[in-house]
């Protein structure tokens, strides 16, 4: 009886561990996907209404809807509102301050979060078209990261699952 319970626990533990690892990878991938959406919307706002970065961020937040929404979609609105309310708030500083801790929570490495938080380096252009192009350039690098994350997700998902199952089966056999 105890042996049976032990086997079940081992199997469940192994599967849980696998899914937790997969979940981490999934969060990272989704985060990049949402960031890409934010950047696309930012481009549209700049192209159409020549909104300031703060205004565009607020509008993106509003477009993302209220209530239960992905926490990442709340960030632009938070940054935008802060910059709008505080006279001397610097967009770059606020962006970094908000994004860096969030990215860490999303299991990005130090290096990755550093790259993602450098978005404001691509702002401050005198011309709207140049500003759009700069955001597009940055979006391309994020797209690259997203493709990499997706490939890695698909590959690691299979690997983790097969290793997890094989390992737990081996444990079960040994226990039997």
């Amino acid at each position, binding site marked *: 009886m105890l042996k049976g319970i032990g086997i079940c626990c081992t199997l469940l533990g192994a599967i849980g561990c696998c899914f937790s690892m997969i979940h981490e990878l999934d969060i990272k991938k989704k985060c990049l996907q949402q960031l890409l959406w934010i950047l696309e919307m930012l481009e549209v706002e700049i192209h159409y209404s*020549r909104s*300031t970065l*703060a205004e565009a961020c607020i509008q993106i937040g509003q477009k993302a809807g209220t209530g239960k929404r992905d926490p990442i979609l709340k960030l632009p609105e938070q940054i935008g509102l802060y910059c709008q309310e505080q006279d*001397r708030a610097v967009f*770059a500083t606020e962006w970094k301050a908000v994004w860096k801790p969030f990215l860490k929570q999303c299991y990005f490495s130090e290096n990755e979060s550093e790259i993602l938080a450098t978005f404001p380096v691509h702002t401050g252009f005198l*011309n709207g078209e140049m*500003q759009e192009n700069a955001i597009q350039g940055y979006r391309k690098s994020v797209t690259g990261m997203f493709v990499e994350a997706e490939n890695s997700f698909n590959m690691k998902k299979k690997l983790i699952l097969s290793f997890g199952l094989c390992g737990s089966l081996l444990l079960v056999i040994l226990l039997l």
Partner: protein
Amino acid sequence: MGQGVAILGLFPERIRKILQVKVKQSDSLEEIRLRVGQPVRIKQGEKELVLQEEQKLGMRDLTETLNGFCKDSPYAFAEELQQGFLTMPGGHWVGICGQVILDDQMHIRNIKHVSYLNIRIAHQVPGCADPLLPYCFQNDVFQNTLIISPPGAGKTTILRDLIRQVSDGSRDHPGLNVSVVDERSELAGAFMGVPQNDMGKRTDVLDGCPKALGMLLLLRAMSPELIAVDELGTEADAEAMLRVLNCGCKILCTIHGDDMDSIKEKQFLHKLWENRAFDRFVILARKEKQHVIKGIYDGDGICLKE
């Protein structure tokens, strides 16, 4: 508390520290001038003050200041920068100067290396148009009015107050629907579409639009009873104004000039003269640092007030 206190927050820390004491003390702050390689200069009434002479401004100070004014999004203000000015929260006005970028047609595309900024503090003087208001109405009907004034004699300030009072209405006159074309964002001082100055309860403001285009747009869109514009300057403005008058709408505008004769010499106004477009002429002047009404005349040139 000085009028410029509210804008202190928009400056980067270094400049804010330089400005802080004087701006907080001053009630008559008119201008703040930032020039690269020079200390900060402010103008209080007729007096110019140099602040902390040893603290010369660098290019970085000016770039940071401009970025702050543009909310770190200079591209969003490209059209204003092209014309060399920006409006800030509070209706304050920033003149910009630096190196011009021209396009193929030799039009100004933008200004780079901004090295000079002139921040003009917005002044609202509620009630400054009081002595003028009774002359602008006859039998409860607003009279087409032209305010003639040399630069710096307060024509924009008086026009702004007149618009507010005509729009709000009073015991003597009901409020009118006023539409304003604010080409240089000086009248309403709109920042991101929101007027920073009190323009009255029944006023619609079209911001940043050329006067000729704006007057016709407002005529179609807002059915105004009165259209107000600042600084008539081209034939197109005069023609648009005639069309406004033909539609039965009243006009209120200003023009640069010293007296009636200086206005009559202006070629682009000839059609307006021929059509006797104006019923009232208000001439402003600056006397002993004060803005004064030099005279009010009717459409026939008869003096109503001296």
